[in-house]
């Protein structure tokens, strides 16, 4: 009889007591995972999370209580877990995993790393660190009722970046600035406006009418003329939005009239835009105030207060009130202060709700409740305890296989809402081999990138291409010009002078090669440069060999998105009948026990496209900083999610 400790063989139980594991993230999946690890007998656990506890976490992150709101997730999770296993050795880090302190040597201390993250940047980074340290990684994600777990082992399986993930959806500048047609365009505009007025001004987040919109011009020459004219004008359009607002003392009515009346009237002069579209109708504060009917106190409704849709004057008042509050917040912070937008900061959320709705009204769209605007503006992914509980259970089971040395029995497991054609609610799939062309885990990763070398700056290369697109945290770049010219140094200040220069100024042209390194990630990427002058508007670069950036919306599935954006009265996901649909064919269902006697290479025989990998999509790619105070945080979407077709 095999010697057991609980349900485990003694050797396994012993190794659980001695090995060290890392849990990255102490949120929805993280809390459940920590509990499972401790109860299963893991004794040495490190847990890291940069976030603090919010009341909306409490429906599922059960290691936290109301009294813990505002405190560090990692630290409270550790304390709570120790309550039910006082002998466990848990180390908590209230920090970002992307901090260079957590280098390859740090990762090598662990026998196993388990991600419980909610954003792609961190997942990419941990993926690379685990490849560099050659430590097995268990990746996972959840969204609503759906979830997934998979195992990543260098050389044996696909890494997290082997299969390109759909890029985050972005909208062309002229759609945001001139011709919005959907509520989301107005919401994005409102968030840009927040930054322009109260936060960090960003050249890519302009809110004023786009005079260089090619659609507006009679002929190409006029586009150029208009663009240069607006620069030479010396009128208010040259002054930054923030400077202008400051000059008015952030007078809400003046700001209102500029954005919702004057700028709209300007758009109306660009008449070509309105030949086939319904023209916007400007708003006038005074007129609205005069015609406002006093709102009867609506009886305490049975719905959520946030789910009510106000009338235009209601949003005018909300706009005024939030501007005044934000103005005070700025004043309190002192000179040169900047606010960071946070969906859980009421005046910031009020501001976006008001501004977005006023713009929707101007452009003849039905206005939306604060509840719905918050979903879209905050990229909220609905989340419940049970899905996270299931996924966290599966993570530990995969972990046990890994620690038993049974990597071949590891699987990707998908949690469905309804059983598939084979009656499976939980679908295990054989892990894929690494992609030979992977730009991360191939032996000498290489990519080809199309840019306009005369219009792309060194800073853009660093931030948009190397960091955002290729997931580097602290890139170093040399030009392969025989001289090894250093273009970008990760040491602060060293190559700052290069930032605003164009690539062409360094002799970079068609066919040039750049070597980009991230030493922390132990990652080298060779970039072949293809010069082009024919990129789409608002597109700064294109990675060759990938589909153009027309990805589906980065939500968990279309149904959920439609439900939210259509303003479903209940704000619920549509109740599905759980009939088994053809969609299930999208899953590559390979189970070792289904094909008795067939070799595991029969995995290749399956038809149908593979379900896309777990991930979390964010609206903007900003790095989350440790939340030391509410206003300092840039809020990512909640929790772990997956992106499905």
């Amino acid at each position, binding site marked *: 009889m095999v010697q057991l400790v609980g349900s485990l063989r003694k050797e396994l139980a012993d190794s659980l007591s001695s090995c060290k594991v890392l849990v990255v993230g102490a949120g929805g999946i993280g809390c459940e995972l920590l509990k499972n690890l401790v109860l299963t007998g893991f004794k040495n656990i490190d847990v890291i999370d940069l976030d603090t506890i919010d009341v909306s976490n409490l429906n599922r992150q059960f290691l936290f209580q109301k009294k813990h709101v505002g405190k560090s997730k990692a630290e409270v999770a550790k304390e709570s877990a120790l309550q039910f296993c006082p002998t466990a050795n848990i180390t908590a880090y209230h920090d970002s995993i992307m901090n260079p302190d957590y280098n390859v040597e740090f990762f090598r201390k662990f026998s196993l790393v388990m991600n419980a993250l909610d954003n792609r940047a961190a997942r990419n980074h941990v993926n690379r660190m685990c490849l560099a340290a050659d430590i097995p990684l268990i990746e996972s994600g959840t969204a609503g009722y759906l979830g997934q777990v998979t195992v990543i082992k260098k050389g044996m399986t696909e890494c997290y970046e082997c299969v390109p993930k759909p890029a985050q959806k972005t909208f062309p500048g002229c759609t945001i600035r001139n011709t919005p047609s959907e509520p989301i365009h107005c919401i994005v505009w409102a968030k840009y406006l927040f930054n322009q007025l109260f936060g960090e001004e960003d050249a890519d987040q302009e809110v004023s009418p786009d005079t260089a919109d090619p659609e507006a011009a009679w002929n190409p020459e006029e586009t150029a003329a208009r663009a240069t004219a607006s620069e030479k004008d010396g009128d208010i359009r040259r002054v930054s939005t923030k400077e202008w607002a400051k000059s008015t003392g952030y007078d809400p009515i003046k700001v209102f009239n500029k954005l919702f009346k004057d700028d709209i009237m300007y758009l109306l002069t660009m008449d070509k835009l309105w030949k086939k579209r319904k023209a916007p109708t400007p708003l006038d504060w005074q007129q609205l105030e005069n015609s406002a009917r006093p709102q009867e106190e609506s009886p305490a409704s049975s719905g959520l207060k946030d789910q009510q849709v106000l009338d235009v004057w209601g949003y005018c008042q909300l706009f005024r009130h939030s501007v005044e509050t934000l103005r005070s917040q700025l004043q309190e912070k002192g000179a040169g202060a900047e606010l960071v937008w946070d969906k859980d900061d009421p005046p910031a959320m009020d501001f976006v709700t008001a501004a977005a709705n006023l713009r929707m009204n101007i452009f003849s769209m039905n206005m939306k409740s604060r509840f719905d605007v918050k979903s879209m503006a905050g990229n909220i992914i609905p989340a419940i305890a049970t899905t996270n*509980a299931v996924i966290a259970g599966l993570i530990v089971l995969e972990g046990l296989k890994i620690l038993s040395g049974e990597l071949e029995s590891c699987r990707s497991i998908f949690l469905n809402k309804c059983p598939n054609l084979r009656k499976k609610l939980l679908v295990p799939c054989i892990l894929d081999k690494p992609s030979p062309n992977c730009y991360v885990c191939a032996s000498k990763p290489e990519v080809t990138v199309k840019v306009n070398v005369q219009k792309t700056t060194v800073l853009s290369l660093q931030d948009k291409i190397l960091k955002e697109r290729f997931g580097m945290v602290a890139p170093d770049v040399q030009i392969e010009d025989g001289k090894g010219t250093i273009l970008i140094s990760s040491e602060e200040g060293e190559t700052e002078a290069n930032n605003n220069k164009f690539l062409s100024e360094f002799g970079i042209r068609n066919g040039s090669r750049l070597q980009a390194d991230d030493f922390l990630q132990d990652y080298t990427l060779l970039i072949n440069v293809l010069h082009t002058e024919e990129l789409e508007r608002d597109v700064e670069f294109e990675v060759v060999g990938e589909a153009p950036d027309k990805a589906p919306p980065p939500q968990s599935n279309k149904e959920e998105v439609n439900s939210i954006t259509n303003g479903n009265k209940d704000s619920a996901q549509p109740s599905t009948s759980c009939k088994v649909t053809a969609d299930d064919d999208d899953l590559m269902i390979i189970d070792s026990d289904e094909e008795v006697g067939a070799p595991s290479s029969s995995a290749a025989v399956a038809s149908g496209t593979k379900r896309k990998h777990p991930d979390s999509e964010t609206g903007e790619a900003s790095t989350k900083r440790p939340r030391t105070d509410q206003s300092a945080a840039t809020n990512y979407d909640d929790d772990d999610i997956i992106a499905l077709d």
Partner: protein
Amino acid sequence: MIEKEDPIISEEEAAQYDRQIRLWGLDAQKRLRGSRVLLAGVGGLGAELAKNLILAGVKGLTLLDHELVSEESCRAQFLVPVSAKGQNRAQASLERAQNLNPMVEVHADPDRVEDKPDDFFLQFDATASFCTLKEALEVEWSSEKAKASLKRTPVDYFLLHVLLKFRTDKGRDPDPESCADDSQLLRQIRDDVLEAMGLSSDLLSDDFISYCFSEMSPVCAVVGGVLGQEVVKALSQRDAPHRNFFFFDGRKGNGVVDYFGPN
């Protein structure tokens, strides 16, 4: 019966339940909020279920368990403090269960479920069932039709039969303290059960025995999660429940929904 709904949802509830209201809607949340649930047994699986339902925001949850806290209990579930050995398991779990969500009324009851009068159960909300457990287990396996479906029947179904028979015969679950004797008995029962069904004992290989002695946290988490969601569906009257058994194989990662019962 689900209590007359209080139509107003407080700001506190709206804030705390925000992420789940966005998934299943306000009406479903209100129905949950009006439901009283009875949970019989607070072992590993019971604790998971308790957590999931308390977090979901039911009106009340009664933990019913006559067992006492053992050495094993502390390893199996996270509601019982390590200092509570010898106490009644339901009562020992009460404090932590309540702390999960102060908006839920959590009660502990140390009685045996068999000792409860019929009307005790009336205070809880009924859960729909398609057929009784007894009917589900009394499947005629010797027919051709049954034999044909055997190939796609999860082996765990037969394991369930074996465990239930053990429990009936011994009045308890397999105990690590009497590992050798219990293993012998389990093997015997397996042979008997399968033979009585007209099936070969090869169907359930010997290694099943090692899985019978304790609950395993991650498995409790998976099953507790699926089961928890089924209860939420029933109480909120939203989305069709799975019909009617769910089997989870922790080694393979298969989670199968299958139907057993009168056709």
